[in-house]
């Protein structure tokens, strides 16, 4: 428990209404969107909601002095337990830091505080014809700080890359309260270690990200959505390879297997032709309608060659929104199929996608489990979701073995544990499997150098 005098010092910094310690408030900052059980709750001793970098810095001075664990948090929409205050201490919620500080149109860069919602930043830039591409499924509510700390991906990665491809600079409050400014607007920059890349994806274990300088690109003028149905997942994957090899790069290429399609059909009360075993939803973008039409024609030809059975072009914005709403709501729709859902986030070389899906199928058979598979086929990032009832102990045991085998399957084909959700708590047991002893040792050495007292988001990654 945190001493009252320390709480008082913190209240003096952020104001009493922004340092909460009632049982109820502490409980509601104990979870995120991962499958870590709600109870027993991992409650912080104090929830702190600072408004400025200066407040964060002063708070870290106190935390450092008294060795209080600090777990930074945006909106707690992460899927791996990254923002769960596992060791108590302070839940540092950056959701009040919501200022967009500068939009530099000439350099095409934007500076925003950590608590700005990604969707708000996107719209802010879009109003000036500029495009911030990373679009994790959570972008309407997740924050820039969280996106950078987790190096969030998204559907547009196949053409536009992930968050780290856009982070040019960061403001980070270090464990002892020092405020570090790193990176900048110069495109070429090899002065010293690349700290921007180090902090991006560090999951709150190396410092508190308070501001980010992000690169923008011109907004594509036209967008279109296609939906293609296949008999098998392999046909769908083959279509994507052939497209990319022929230099047709869609903005997104999302794949769903039959279990997912059934979940959506049930959720939306619609019927699917029985022959359909997989679906790809593709977003294309370009200069004008003609460019879009040409791309759609090329894709249709490739898909046909690969055995597609249905090809649909969204005829209106509404139809297109509808298709993407299905994809964005998929995670939750699949979760609704069973009492528990363990959603994973493996990432494999793109050509290994059909192979890893086959391996996941045999894992499902071996452990008698339903595993729904969907993901970003364009970049090899898959979300196998194990549908189960964890209150059944015998089943829970099978689930854990199955998850371990899914990870092993990903590693066996040259892939890795996590594409975009991070390691957090849920994938911690498998980190050595993925990185090897030397890899984990190196991570620990970095951590030791930047957070010698181990107060920043303790209990995560390894």
């Amino acid at each position: 428990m945190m001493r009252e005098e320390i709480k008082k010092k913190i209240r003096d910094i952020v104001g009493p209404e922004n340092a909460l310690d009632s049982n109820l408030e502490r409980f509601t900052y104990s979870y995120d969107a991962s499958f870590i059980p709600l109870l027993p709750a991992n409650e912080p001793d104090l929830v702190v909601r600072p408004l400025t970098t200066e407040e964060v810095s002063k708070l870290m001075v106190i935390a450092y002095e008294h060795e209080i664990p600090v777990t930074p948090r945006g909106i707690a929409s992460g899927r791996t337990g990254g923002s769960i205050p596992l060791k108590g201490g302070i839940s540092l919620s950056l959701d009040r830091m919501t200022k967009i500080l500068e939009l530099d149109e000439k350099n095409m860069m934007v500076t925003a505080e950590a608590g700005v919602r990604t969707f708000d930043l996107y719209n802010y830039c879009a109003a000036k014809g500029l495009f911030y591409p990373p679009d994790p499924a959570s972008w309407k509510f997740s924050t820039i700080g969280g996106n950078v700390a987790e190096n969030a991906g998204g559907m547009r990665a196949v053409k536009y890359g992930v968050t780290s491809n856009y982070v040019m600079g960061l403001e980070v409050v270090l464990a002892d309260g020092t405020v570090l400014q790193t990176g900048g607007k110069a495109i070429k920059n090899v002065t010293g270690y690349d700290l921007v890349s180090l902090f991006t994806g560090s999951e709150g274990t190396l410092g508190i990200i308070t501001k980010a300088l992000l690169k923008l690109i011109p907004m594509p003028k036209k967008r279109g959505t296609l939906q293609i149905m296949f008999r098998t997942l392999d046909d769908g994957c083959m279509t994507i390879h052939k497209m990319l090899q022929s230099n047709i790069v869609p903005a997104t290429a999302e794949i769903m297997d039959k279990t997912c399609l059934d979940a959506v059909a049930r959720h939306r009360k619609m019927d699917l032709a029985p022959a359909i075993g997989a679906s790809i939803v593709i977003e294309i973008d370009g200069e004008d309608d003609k460019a879009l039409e040409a791309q759609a024609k090329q894709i249709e030809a490739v898909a046909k060659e690969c055995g597609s059975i249905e090809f649909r072009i969204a005829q209106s914005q509404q139809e297109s929104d509808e298709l993407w709403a299905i994809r964005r709501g998929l995670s939750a729709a699949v979760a609704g199929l069973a009492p528990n859902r363990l959603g994973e986030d493996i990432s494999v070389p793109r050509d290994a996608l059909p192979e890893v899906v086959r391996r996941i199928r045999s894992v499902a058979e071996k452990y008698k489990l339903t595993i729904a598979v969907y993901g970003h086929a364009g970049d090899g990032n898959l979300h196998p979701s194990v549908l189960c009832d964890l209150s059944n102990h015998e089943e829970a045991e099978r689930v854990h073995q199955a998850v371990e085998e899914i990870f092993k399957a990903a590693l066996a084909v040259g892939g890795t544990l996590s594409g975009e959700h991070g390691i957090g708590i849920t994938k911690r047991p498998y980190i050595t499997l993925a990185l090897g002893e030397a890899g984990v040792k190196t991570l620990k050495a970095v951590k030791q150098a930047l957070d010698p007292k181990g107060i920043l988001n303790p209990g995560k990654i390894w």
Partner: protein
Amino acid sequence: MHKTTDNELLQDAKKNVSQCDRCGTCLPICPLFEAKGVETSSARGKNTIARALAEGGLEPTPDVLAAVNFCLLCRACVETCPSKIKTDEAMINVRQYLINRAGGPSVKYKAIGGFLKSRGMVKIAAGTLSILRKLGLNSVFPDGMVPEEYTRAHFLAAFAGPAALGQKVLPSDVAVTATTKVAYFKGCGMRMMFPKASAETLKILKTTARVMLKNNVCCGMPHLAHGLRDEFLALAKKNIRLYEDAEVVVCDCASCGGALKHIASYFNEDPEWKDQAAAFSRKVMDLTEYLVKVGYTPRQKVDTTFTYHDPCHLVRGQGIKKQPRDLLKATGKFVEMKEADTCCAGAGTFHMDYPDISSKIIEKKRQNIEGTGAAIVVTGCPGCLIQLTKAAKASGGKFKPMHISQVI
């Protein structure tokens, strides 16, 4: 009849909220989270609180009751939730559970409930404030009665344009079969605070059919929302009986209409009342729903710009979005406002319980209304009208709020 036990209430809520994935989709949608920013104020927070309460992770303390009470029941979260978690229903169940445990609702809610239950009291109150003051309810009615100038007569005088001025209202050309038995449900809010709008509803209805007049009792929504479930059921039974001979029950209050349409679901396990309740709920229609169905033509065409605020209990409670807009477009110019379906934070007694948060939310609504340049903001709910009246006052008279029956 089947009596819902405390445990069942909590288990019902648990079954509902345990499907919450905690993904966060509801966070930017919840007007209270927007205004307050802490997790307890969000739909996700309240779902997890309900679940922890049911699973023994939280004790039923007063701050838990305060947290579940801090919900507008506006269903914005339900609509956007990928798992369709019914947070509003869970909150109603948990409120009832906590209140039963505590031995009854607070004196204030009991007073409101008792007051609305009594038909006589509601009638006496119509046109007077003294009883409301005695009950400490005068803050519900910020300006006493709704100002005289917001009546239909004034609306016509100010906006109808020369052609319509002073003319007799033309009869509507709607053909309704002589046999359709249409009845009006007069809600307490309409009766007490907007008697003139209520009179207009009746006039409009009379142009479409021979209207049966009933001496109905309260719909029971306030009772249900605040842990007086037994009173809600008793009122529901009275109304079911009263409207047995009607084929259509028209309601000009979104909340009453929503409550009446949902009565059936509360009698599912009551063999004696199940069928009657289902039959009753089926025949309830919102005024605009009914009017569009019978092909009603507004009594005049005016050169006025309208905008429309969606009451939660209409847009999400009953799925009625298009009908009021169609009627307004047929009456004058129509401009859609930003976030028209965001709750105005009236929410029954919410605006009395949490005046600061409520004003924050209505302030945003005011800006959105002003953004349209409309002279009149129309809605279909007395609770919303009170909030919009506050917004109009704050705008310095840039627009006026009116019930839809006063303009069409």
